[in-house]
């Protein structure tokens, strides 16, 4: 499977659309345990990303992803801006000068993105953050790669792991981010950041499925 610049652009556009679609839901998830802004901030960021995309559409995949990341850092604000921004920037840095990607390179980029989020947010798994969704997804991809599993099936299992990880945040006690100030009252709510991460993973899977067909 070859992943091209066009596929990456399609993926980013798809994420922007998916975030817009779930904007109010992300705001609602953020109300009981945050400050009711996650959906609005993400939508503002990805709407600006859509404006910027045409200016880099003929560039390499690394440049495109770095531009997405820097735009998110500049427009999202809150914790999500630096976290998602760093994720895209790190993924872009891992793919410098590449116009086509192999599945192995996608895994390398996702690993770099996860490491970037952890370095910026200093969160560990089990703290009710986006790491709890993204972490298991990256684990599945790495393990599948080691076992020589076909990429398409690995992606499906990976996104299922992201979804499960997202749901696993419901019973968790938040110890990072604004939700942590609620103490026990953070239990019983799904983390908004883990939820937006799941939507991004979902679009990634759909993009890859589109190539496959």
């Amino acid at each position: 499977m070859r992943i091209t610049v066009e596929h990456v652009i399609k993926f980013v556009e798809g994420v922007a659309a998916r975030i817009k679609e779930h904007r109010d839901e992300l705001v609602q998830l953020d109300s009981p345990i945050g400050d009711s802004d996650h959906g609005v901030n993400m939508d503002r960021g990805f709407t600006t990303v859509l404006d910027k995309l045409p200016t880099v559409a003929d560039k390499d995949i690394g440049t495109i992803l770095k531009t997405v990341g820097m735009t998110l850092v500049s427009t999202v604000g809150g914790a999500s801006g630096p976290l998602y921004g760093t994720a895209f920037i790190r993924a872009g840095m891992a793919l410098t000068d590449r116009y086509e990607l192999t599945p192995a390179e996608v895994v390398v980029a996702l690993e770099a993105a996860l490491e970037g989020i952890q370095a910026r947010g200093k969160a560990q798994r089990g703290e009710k953050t986006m790491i709890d969704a993204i972490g298991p997804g990256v684990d599945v991809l790495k393990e599948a790669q080691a076992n020589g599993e076909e990429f398409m099936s690995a992606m499906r299992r990976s996104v299922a792991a992201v979804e499960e990880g997202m749901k696993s945040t419901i019973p968790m006690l938040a110890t990072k981010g604004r939700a942590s100030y609620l103490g026990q009252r953070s239990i019983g709510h799904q983390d908004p950041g883990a939820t937006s991460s799941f939507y991004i993973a979902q679009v990634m899977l759909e993009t890859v499925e589109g190539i496959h067909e």
Partner: protein
Amino acid sequence: MKKLINAPEGVVKDALAGIAAAHSDLVTVHYDPDYIVRADAPVKGKVGIISGGGSGHEPMHGGFVGRGMLDAACPGAVFTSPVPDQMLAATKAVDGGAGVLHIVKNYTGDVMNFEMAAELAAAEGLDVAAVVTNDDVAVENSTWTAGRRGVGVTVLLEKMVGAAAEAGANLAECKRIAEKVNAQGRSMGMALTACTVPHAGKPGFELGDDEMEVGIGIHGEPGRRKEKLTTAANITEMLAGPILDDLPFQRGDTVLAFVNGMGGTPQIELYVMYNELAKLLADRGITIGRNLIGSYITSLEMAGCSFTLVKLDDELTKLWDAPVLTPALRWGA
């Protein structure tokens, strides 16, 4: 939702334009990236003092830009941290050659965005230091949370450090004073009502007619616990008790007592609370050396109040008394 706005998306920009229209003698408003800067910035040879955070806490921080306090303030969207571009542009705008101090309230987003801005500023050869305020004693277990939130102390610290910078203190000295004020200050707040973020359209939490939320932050987020509403005297004990025990403040101490309204609290109620606080501190043998009563660090239209106490010594008292000339705080100037 009933608000005096044109559209939820335009609230921050419209308010910035209002500040520009009202206070052009003191400040200049810069757009895209948004920041409010002292009209005479950069002041040559003076340490630049910058703060910033989500909007909705007015007059903090934009109302504190001016002589003797902040050189610039970076407003984010309502209750959302500003982005690094703003802090970087503001840092450059106020750099008078003596370095720039970032005053950051301890919230995950604010800390990360200011960190990124400081990294970018350092890469451009600017001398930047940062201090993080974390005075909210309502956060009981900082090990299992993102740490104590920065609340009321931020206002007092900005005034004192601004005075030090105005008097010629260098960057290291400004940072030392900022850390000292933060270390000697503690706060706790409560809410009678929730508040509604314009783009959310609904209150951040529900409170019954006879309920209050104790241990709130400043973002319309719920606090540590709900309680039945009680008298001003009882609420004063609920807030002041944890503050006094935490530092701890002791018999013989002199403090700056700050009774802050959350945005929707009548001044008459703040004076009722101040009276209770003064009685309680007198009983404990603590002297109120200076005070500040009013709504300075708010959560939109939330009704409620917070107390902040800072232990005073000669140095801090002198810095507090120094002239200040900003849209929201002005004396001696």
